């Protein structure tokens, strides 16, 4: 009798239902280590990015926009702190903004045709998507500099507040630069480029 009572009281509690049994199975897909999906990447610090930015700015001042673009795409920050990643994105956007619309396609074609160019444009596409994510989630300000999340308005109705992204002139401008580059990159590197950004585990 007592055994039965103990048994029922144990089963009455349904805490056991919430145990994630997949986490306990070492072969389970939950325990799949996605780090095995790419070779180890060298860590890039914020100081390295700053140094690169200085070099890229120098190239830009010297009028070598293509060199500057290649320079910032050849060492993507696949492994680094959030600040380093943010700084690298900032550098790429800066270079993109300084290139005239008429120069975009010839420059992309020449990068694509050069050795390792396909990889470069894949990296560029990754930065474009990262830039769009940052500008659309930033609530005004000098986005993508400040990737702060949208905080709900005091009213509790976040929809009533100004739409993120549309609120500030600079965000809109940055987005339009990214969008026009996106269009040009797809023209040159094809849809395969977008597919690679989605499949690739090396995130910028």
């Amino acid at each position, binding site marked *: 009798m007592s055994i039965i009572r103990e048994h029922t009281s144990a089963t009455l509690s349904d805490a056991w239902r919430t145990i994630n049994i997949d986490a306990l199975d070492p072969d389970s*897909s939950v325990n*799949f280590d996605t780090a*095995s*999906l790419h*070779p180890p990447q060298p860590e890039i610090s914020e100081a390295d990015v700053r140094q690169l930015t200085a070099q890229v700015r120098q190239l830009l001042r010297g009028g070598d926009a293509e060199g500057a673009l290649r320079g910032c795409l050849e060492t993507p920050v696949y492994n680094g702190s959030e600040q380093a990643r943010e700084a690298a994105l900032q550098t790429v956007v800066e270079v993109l903004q300084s290139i005239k619309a008429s120069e975009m396609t010839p420059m992309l074609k020449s990068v694509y045709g050069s050795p390792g160019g396909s990889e470069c444009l894949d990296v560029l596409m990754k930065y474009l998507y990262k830039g769009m994510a940052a500008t659309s989630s930033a609530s005004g300000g000098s986005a993508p500099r400040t990737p702060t999340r949208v905080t709900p308005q005091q009213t509790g109705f976040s929809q009533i507040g100004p739409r993120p992204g549309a609120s500030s002139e600079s965000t809109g401008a940055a987005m339009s630069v990214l969008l026009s580059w996106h269009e040009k990159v797809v023209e040159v590197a*094809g*849809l395969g480029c977008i*597919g690679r950004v989605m*499949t*690739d585990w090396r995130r910028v």
Partner: protein
Amino acid sequence: MAAPEVHHLFHNPIADHSFSADHKTLAIARDTTVELYGRAGNAFKLQDELKGHDKTVTSIDIAPNSGRIVSCSQDRNALVWEPTPQGYKPTLVLLRINRAATFVRWSPSETKFAVGSGDRLIAVCYFEEENDWWVSKHLKKPIRSTVTTVAWHPNSVLLAAGSTDAHARVFSSFIKGVDARPEPTAWGERLPFNTVCGEYMNNSAGWVHSVAFSPSGDALAFAAHDSSITVVYPSAPEQPPKAVISISTQLLPFMSLIWNGEAEIIAAGYDCEAFRFRGGIEGWQLSGAVETKGRPGLGGQREESALNMFKQMDLKGKVKDDTQLKTVHQNTITMIRPYETSGDAVAKFSSSGVDGRIVIWNV
């Protein structure tokens, strides 16, 4: 180049297709059944339906010499269909897997077949005389995810597999008493069961959709979801490969690829048409589409007549009918296979698509 032979069988996706050696029978994996079509003049007529699976049939293969058909399905089973005078007789295979079976291929020796599965393993199946039963041995390590595709080496011992963990691997599937000891190759010399002879991944690590050994067996190609194909040239057992060449394309991903000799690969997939790659150990590149576009009768001249133009405007509200793709296949190509070969070269290959078409192409 002669026009391709197009057979629009039905409006369902074709997961996989296989021709018999004499090209008179065509087996199609359609939904939960295997349909057998027979050639009648220029068309294919439905002859038989093999019903044995109760979930979607994922893959099918006809052994060219014995005529046995093997099919596998999401119901976790594989069936071997033995041709008898009374029709095909199914035999269940003991796969021992608890996820869907995804892909099946006969070995060139036809004494074994390999079944890839969502259970992170490959079941290598062979016939056990004393039990009168198809049994299987599992290739398990180091597969980390669903096996999407397998391909046999010409020696029937080495097996290549592609998986959703982004790796293409080469295994030994040597089974004592079934296989003769294979000649040493660049992949390995001593090959006990489940020897991993190679494990490859490309930089952007997409799911592997298709793998294939070159006709000599000394190179391996695989297509991944990052719109790339990668060719691996092994050097010697336990050594890093001589060359791993990865070509990222501007196209959509490829679902299936075949070798045409040692210097050409044909791949097809989400772009609804087949493409050629040419090269060798020093490098590979995309050399163009197999299909010649703008063939007569593909819409080009129809738009010229004014009547047709107004008809289109009236019916569809626009001048141009842009609902038709310019390619023969109107949807993703799921599988391509050699149809007619001369030596190592492929003279014709067949493709099946989500649009329910089977097309036989001249290379």
